[in-house]
């Protein structure tokens, strides 16, 4: 459904996006995970035809964006990160406006409007001016506006920023609903849990480039199967490295003075053995936590920094 090849965008010396490429199959949710400034919104803007890429190519449903932008835009639904609504209009009027832009009229418009209001849980507030809505309600309407013309591909740019957990759950449910109906979704976020919970495939981004991509399972496999130990204390990194090297199968994922990330794979001596070795080494440890590997660990491994840095 979506094919992005070697996409780049530079602003002077700054490489906002640098040689990015990925494919999204129809009916799938593809996530772009990365911190603020990673280049996610610039990619969305280039796919939406708002920003011209320096290099690269975007195809939607086999149509080249550069050759026929109008045809591509007809297939796209864009839900921007900022809440873009006419606050003095009601929810119904906002939907009617966007429907009208895409040529929806009469009963078709009425039906689609009611359907969407029901979907995002705003049917009972449909005739109120949007300025009376809470932040979560505005977010939900913001999402509905991008779906009014039944797009084949929806670009969701951080749709859950700054809202309460209940509204977030509602939005994620709506995304799942539309995907179940055959729509393809490109979803950007910097929330790991959200990406892990929602996306079929992910690309992990930082500084305009994709560091890894694949299904959640494939990405986690990069960390190795087994457990991840986070070791903290007042130690030199060489001392921890020496201890881990002596352990069968264990490997360092990340190492710094005072902090180390150790993968203990299945089939090795196991977590207990590793803990015993570390505590028995005489290193000044302040604590060790054991957990299943997650995307945070992967991001740390790939970029050398935490996602929320």
């Amino acid at each position, binding site marked *: 459904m979506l094919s992005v090849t070697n996409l780049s965008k530079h602003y002077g010396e700054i490489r906002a996006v640098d040689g990015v490429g990925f494919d999204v199959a129809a009916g799938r949710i593809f996530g772009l995970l990365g911190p603020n400034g990673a280049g996610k919104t610039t990619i969305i803007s280039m796919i*939406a*035809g*708002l*920003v011209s890429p320096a290099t690269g190519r975007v195809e939607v449903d086999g149509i080249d964006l550069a050759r026929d932008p*109008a*045809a591509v*835009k*007809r297939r*796209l639904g*864009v839900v*921007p990160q*900022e*809440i*873009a*609504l*006419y606050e*003095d*209009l009601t929810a119904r*009027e906002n939907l*009617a*406006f*966007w*429907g*009208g*832009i*895409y*040529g929806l009229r009469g009963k078709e418009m009425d039906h689609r409007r009611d359907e969407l209001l029901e979907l995002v849980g705003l049917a009972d507030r449909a005739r109120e*001016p949007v300025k009376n809505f809470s932040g979560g309600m505005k977010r939900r309407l913001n999402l509905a*506006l991008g779906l009014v013309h039944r797009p084949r591909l929806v670009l969701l740019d951080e749709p859950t920023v700054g809202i309460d957990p209940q509204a977030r759950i509602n939005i994620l449910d709506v995304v799942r609903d539309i995907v179940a109906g055959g729509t393809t979704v490109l979803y950007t976020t910097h929330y790991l849990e959200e990406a892990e919970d929602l996306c079929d495939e992910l690309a992990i981004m930082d500084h305009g480039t994709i560091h890894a991509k694949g299904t959640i399972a494939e990405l986690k496999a990069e960390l190795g199967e087994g457990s991840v130990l986070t070791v903290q204390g007042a130690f030199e990194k060489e001392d921890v490295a020496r201890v881990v090297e002596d352990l069968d199968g264990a490997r360092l994922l990340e190492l710094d003075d005072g902090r180390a990330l150790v993968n203990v794979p299945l089939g090795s001596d196991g977590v207990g053995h590793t803990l015993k070795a570390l505590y028995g080494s005489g290193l000044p440890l302040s604590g060790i936590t054991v957990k299943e590997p997650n995307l945070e660990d992967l991001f740390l491994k790939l970029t050398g920094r935490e996602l929320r840095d």
Partner: protein
Amino acid sequence: MFWSLIRKDLIRRWRSPASTLVMLLFPFMMAGMIGAISSGPSDQIPPTTLFVLDREDGLLGGFLTGGAVPEDSGFRLEVEKVGEEGFARMENGEASAMLVIPESFTEDLIEGRTTTLRLVRNPAESIKPEILEQGTYVIATYLDVAVKVLGEELEQMFDMFESDEMPSVLMVTQLSAAFYERISQAETYLFPPVVSIGSTKEEGAPRPNLFGYVLVMVSVMSVLFVAIRAVTDLYEDQRTGMLRRQLATPVPVAALVNAKVLFAVVFGVLVMLILLVAGALFGWFQEAVPVHWVLLHSVAYSLAAAGLMTMEVSVVRTEKQAGILAWIVVMGMSALGGSMFPAEFLPEGVRNLSRLTLNYWAVEGYLDLIVRDGRLADVLPRTALLAGVGVVFAGVGQMLMQRRLREVVR
């Protein structure tokens, strides 16, 4: 799609009517304020020239050319006695009106025969001739009252003035006593008047109403504000992210700009028509208004205003800059173009600049259509000029604005 874009803006105006109400009330407030100011002294009003063609060479002509209007009256009148060449001079713009005193005026006056003071108005001016005509009515009324009340004594007085000999003290005392007695007995005066006023610009031309005049002037300025408000909406859309969202749809940028211009035209025409209908209900306009022409003129002017504002707004970077520049342009054009005070009051050199403003052509067109009963043949070129300028401005503005919008989104 176009209708969706325009409908949305109309609903938004309806929901937030404050700025629209200000635009609608502003012309009425200005009409009231100017009315109040005109009742007091003002040094701002330029002198008004009245020619007097005294075919009789009698007392009234001497009185008018020798007299003076009190300085604190707020009206500076310069009276010049002229010959028959006065008609040509007035057409050259040297006077606002010419008072023609007929050959046997004094004799007819004293004999009680109806006589006519004819005021020939300069057709190129509106307000000053109106003031002069009102002044002439006052003179006629005084003369009328004097003739009816004084009768014989007035005849004696004229004889006394025309005599080469100095009147005796006794004669003056007797005449004064008779005057006093007559005046104290006169409570009313009879009709029909002995002296009537004949006003000539064109045969049967109605007098413009000052309030109607001011309403038209200021309404024209209001339409410029309507156009600014409509076009700067694009910057508001940019600030709120709506523009970015709209540009991600298949709607071309040109269509978004055109829709905004079209909305400015529709809304400008609506505002203008509401104001003009209100003025008509107040009875400030002539009875037979050519509605179709007024509508056509309004469309042409609103298009020119919207086009100009689109061009102007597209050369700045922010909503705030757009507002400041637009305010300067509107105020400048309104001051020069006759929306703040009549263009005919401006000095000769500045008056030529008026023709470079949209206000001038709009105001003159409206005045001819609904206040001055001008000929449609005079209005058509003004309407056509505004329409032509509007098309050009809107076209150029649209191109510039497209470029600007693409830049601001990035």
